[in-house]
């Protein structure tokens, strides 16, 4: 019996366990998934929590629901990955020998890496919304907040769901308007990028939306430290932005076990080929989703598009054939812009988000790079799709490779 071992049962790991179980014979291959957190959060839902649009119970389900029959789900922390010996050791002392390893350990925030960020104001007037704890603490804070300077700061890229901070800004505008206190809240969006976005067409469009919504933009700001006493964030160039409430998107790093096992780059992201998804360290180790050092978005849609490529390449690898499937960096996402509207963007390693339409049978087409109500509904519908289709490795009526169909180039 051969062993396929998957580390992590988040979006990428769950999809892969479903897809691989369908195409590997149960007589020849056993599949094991190791995961430390037995609750599966619908992470796009974190954005909705601070505003009270969702509560925790709306976005969490037991992990076991998404792992198919015939796959062993092991609840444990990983101690070490020894790729030379094809062995993964768990914190509980057991070890697992594999024939093929899929690393899907994701990424996490690391507020500790910015001096002062996790200081005395942490979860008092400094919050994150990338964890359930942070999002819930912020929801509680917003309920009674009297207003002032609301600063949204991205420490540096890469971050998970790179449009979420913008959506947060748009939702803040909607939320405080609805509360009748928008005039008391001064919203400032502080980013290390040179605009709302770097990809030119999307940046222009989103930048003008910030302006329309009276949200200040501070660009090229790379945070160096947080001054807790004077409630300011400071960049390395000496610029300062004062805050009353700071919503931070801290630095992101890979799982600790990656660096500890010597598999990662300086931030703990596994070094792997951005097209074949095979790790550089060992031919029988593959990487999917946020855990990789790919220059693509860290987002569920990317993991979803990568999954079919990875299935194809793992089967080729098993059959001693060259890895011919290549990932093009395809990503797409709905961007909530508030007041019942949203934008959809679709792009890859080489093509920036373009206007036009995104075809989808039954519910689509969705307008690209344009605010519509249908895009907002698409985002809401997506939660159902995530739980019922995406995680279970079922087919969605969209292509893995980015398609130019419907897009307008000039």
């Amino acid at each position, binding site marked *: 019996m051969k062993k396929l071992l998957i580390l992590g049962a988040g979006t990428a790991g769950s999809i892969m366990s479903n897809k691989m179980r369908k195409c590997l014979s149960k007589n020849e291959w056993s599949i094991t998934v190791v995961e430390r957190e037995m609750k599966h959060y619908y992470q796009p839902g974190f954005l909705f929590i601070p505003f009270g649009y969702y509560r925790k119970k709306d976005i969490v389900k037991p992990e076991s629901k998404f792992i198919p029959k015939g796959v062993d789900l092991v609840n444990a922390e990983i101690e070490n990955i020894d790729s030379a010996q094809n062995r993964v050791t768990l914190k509980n002392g057991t070890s697992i020998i594999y024939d093929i390893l899929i690393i899907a350990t994701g990424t996490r925030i690391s507020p500790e890496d910015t001096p002062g960020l996790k200081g005395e104001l942490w979860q008092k007037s400094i919050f994150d919304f990338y964890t359930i704890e942070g999002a819930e603490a912020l929801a509680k804070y917003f309920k009674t907040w009297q207003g002032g300077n609301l600063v949204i700061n991205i420490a*540096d890229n*890469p971050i998970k769901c790179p449009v979420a901070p913008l959506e947060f800004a748009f939702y803040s505008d909607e939320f405080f308007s609805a509360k009748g206190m928008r005039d008391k809240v001064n919203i400032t969006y502080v980013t290390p990028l040179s605009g709302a976005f770097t990809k030119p067409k999307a940046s222009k469009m989103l930048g003008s939306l910030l302006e329309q919504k009276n949200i200040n933009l501070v660009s090229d700001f790379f945070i160096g430290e947080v001054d807790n006493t004077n409630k300011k964030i400071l960049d390395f160039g000496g610029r300062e932005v004062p805050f009353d409430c700071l919503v931070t998107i801290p*630095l992101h790093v890979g799982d600790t076990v990656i660096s500890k096992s010597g598999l990662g780059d300086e931030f703990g992201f596994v070094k792997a080929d*951005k097209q074949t998804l095979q790790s550089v360290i060992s031919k029988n180790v593959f990487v999917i989703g946020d855990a990789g050092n790919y220059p693509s978005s860290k987002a569920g849609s990317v993991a979803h598009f990568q999954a079919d490529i990875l299935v194809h390449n793992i089967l080729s690898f098993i059959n001693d054939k060259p890895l011919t499937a290549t990932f093009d960096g395809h990503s797409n996402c709905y961007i909530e812009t508030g007041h019942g509207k949203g934008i959809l963007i679709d792009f890859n390693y080489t093509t920036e988000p373009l206007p036009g339409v995104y075809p989808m049978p039954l519910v689509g087409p969705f307008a690209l790079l344009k605010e519509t109500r249908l895009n907002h509904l698409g985002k809401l519908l997506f939660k159902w799709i995530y739980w019922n289709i995406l995680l279970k490795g079922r087919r969605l009526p969209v292509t893995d490779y980015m398609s130019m169909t419907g897009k307008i180039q000039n």
Partner: protein
Amino acid sequence: MAQKTYAGITVDVNEEGYFTNPAQWTKEIAVEIAKEEGLVLTGQHFAIMDFLRNKFIGGEALSIRSINHSGVLDVKTFYQLFPGAPLKKATKIAGIPKPVSCI
């Protein structure tokens, strides 16, 4: 596709002046672009630009925080060498595309 001439060599650039073909870059060209940006290059500038070029050619994403791991200098010094928006300036002078965020 736009072109520009630096130090007697014609190179391909995009509308913002960033190289589209990093292989066309030379140190002499870098000195010329730096002048446009009001900078005089030192050994430290070249050391960090080498780091950025190698990372780019290796297919890795560039970020300001990776500077702390360059073994060459820290972010604070990086800001002093390329004031304002250091990564934007450094990549332009180093003849590599402007880093795109991984949106």
